């Protein structure tokens, strides 16, 4: 930016469009906003470029302990982000608020947004985009190709499934009020990848469902995010009057998996889908001890 005219200089700073700053050629200080961004940068071996992550960056598990926390991805602080002296803010599409992102851009720091689409294509696109940004194009391509291969094998295995199970993803059970995954949710996409049928297709996104809605959905298997003890979760779940009447209750079919692993649609997506598939279609759905790969 050039010298400002004398009067109202600081006002003009804000009002004039200064143009969207372009991403630095080789950003050395990146702030990641979105768990999937943090995870992908780690997967590409470029974690040393990170100077801050948002509160949804739960993988690798120590990311938030090692790096400053910039808060929830939708409630960022402009000065907070700038205080980390980034040369690039790499964020998921939904990061915000938008006026905070605008302030960061006005201060000359480029903000690059990434698609959040929960799909095979979305996973590969995110890896390739981030790879190009951090100068790891070759590594990103080979990682993406490997994951694409995993997805292809997953598709072959899906085609061999004779009876697709009805799977219900339960996000939460507060006070007996059950939130499940409907159509067009990340959980529905994951269930599809793993060869299941999302049991609730009448709702959109994550929604509360009635007890009779659960019974009508007739899930063969329930999937939940891992919180605490699996046995306790199963006991709670199948004590619920509605879940007790589902086919899942008969063989106590509950699968618990780490939330970001299952729904993050990062580099571990194919692995997570494979994991879910094998647990859906093994003779037993008891959890394996190493359900969540730890770094």
């Amino acid at each position, binding site marked *: 930016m050039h010298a400002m005219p004398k009067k109202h200089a600081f006002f003009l700073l804000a009002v004039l469009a200064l143009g969207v700053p372009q991403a630095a050629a080789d950003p050395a200080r990146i702030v990641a906003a979105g768990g999937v961004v943090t995870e992908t940068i780690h997967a590409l071996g470029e974690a040393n470029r990170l100077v801050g992550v948002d509160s949804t960056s739960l993988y690798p598990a120590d990311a938030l302990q090692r790096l400053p926390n910039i808060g929830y991805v939708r409630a960022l*602080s402009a000065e907070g982000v700038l205080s980390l002296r980034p040369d690039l803010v790499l964020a998921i599409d939904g990061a915000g608020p938008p*006026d905070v992102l605008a*302030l960061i851009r006005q201060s000359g720091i480029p903000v690059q947004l990434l698609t959040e689409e929960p799909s095979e294509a979305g996973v590969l696109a995110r890896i390739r985009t981030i790879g190009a940004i951090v100068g790891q194009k070759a590594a990103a391509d080979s990682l993406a190709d490997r994951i694409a291969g995993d997805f292809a094998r997953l598709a072959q295995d899906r085609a061999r499934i004779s009876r697709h199970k009805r799977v219900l993803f339960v996000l939460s059970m507060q006070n007996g009020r059950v939130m499940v995954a409907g159509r067009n949710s990340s959980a529905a996409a994951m269930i599809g990848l793993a060869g299941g049928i999302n049991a609730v297709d009448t709702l959109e996104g994550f929604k509360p469902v009635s007890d009779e809605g659960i019974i009508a959905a007739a899930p063969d298997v329930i999937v939940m995010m891992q919180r605490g003890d699996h046995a306790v979760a199963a006991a709670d779940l199948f004590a619920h009057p509605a879940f007790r009447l589902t086919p899942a209750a008969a063989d106590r079919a509950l699968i618990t998996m780490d939330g970001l692993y299952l729904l993050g649609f990062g580099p571990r997506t194919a692995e997570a889908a494979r994991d879910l598939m094998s647990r859906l279609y093994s003779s037993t759905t008891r959890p394996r001890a190493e359900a969540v790969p730890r770094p």
Partner: protein
Amino acid sequence: MNGDVVRSILESGQSGSGRTGLVAFLRTALYRRSMIWAALGSAMLAGLFVLSLFKGAVALPAGSLFNLLGGLIGDGNLPDTREALILANIRLPRTLLAMLVGAALAVSGAILQGLFRNPLADPGLIGVSAGAALAAGITIVFGETLLAPAFGRMPYAILPLGAFLGGLGSTLVLYRIATRAGRTSIATMMLAGVALGALSGAMSGFLAYLSDDRQLRDLTFWALGSFSGASWTKLAAVAPAMVAILVVAPFLARGLDALALGEAEAYHLGLPVQRVKAAAILITAVAVGTSVAVAGMIGFVGLVVPHVLRLLLGASHRLLLPFSAMGGAVLLLGADIVARLVVAPAELPIGILTAAIGAPFFLWLLLRRQARPFE
């Protein structure tokens, strides 16, 4: 009834012009006390203003900030450095916005408590927060889909504009409901306000049901308020209306003092009761509507600041309105500084802090004054 109020009304009523009342007032102990508090409040506000410019997630050396400010005041020129950008684009508009919103909310609270003669009156009673919340909820849940084509390339403007128009619109509806034959019934307005609030609460609940988990978090954060997106653009959009309101509000003081005696009594004192009511409602609706539009819902400021000041200075609106502006600015600016610093580089929603800072102080004042309870 507070003796100061009665005295000031009687004096201004007798003199016919209010001038004699003012002269008498200047000789009172209350005047001396209020001057002490004015000096104290100004000092606090000035201190917080400087602190707010000098402290933030980015550690900037004070010396260079002094130089920048000197340059800014001297010839309006700023170098193109990171420090200058943070000071001029982030901290300065944010500081000014926090002060203005705090002043506007506290003055609104004082006016409404006077108008409704109810210590618990807040903007909810005139429908403005309910309407703003509903409109904001609609823009949060549908802004990215249904409303986006209509606004095209101005997505940031949808929420503030929606909140402002929603707040003003619902106040207008409420005013029409409560006004019969040119006379606004305060009691009807209060009851209708409760009903309208419940209705918009129901619709907001339905929006929460429709929202995805992310929009739900947006709704929650919005309801706690924040200045994190403060910019010159936002300030320029709301400052003219807010400044105008802060200038006009003190002229309501005599009317509100008279209304404290009762509507009939005020009428017999020669007060244009209906005009005072309409002006008070319009002023608070615009003040709260613009505040909510730029900062979301910030509770507690409008409720507690006037009460604290009543405990310190008595119930006369002549002092209460200007002091509320100052007190609101102090509370909100102080809260915003804490919000920015305490979890940096992240930040807390400011609604948490206004209550966390204001409530204990209010309780302490109540306990201290227990021997001489007000009202």
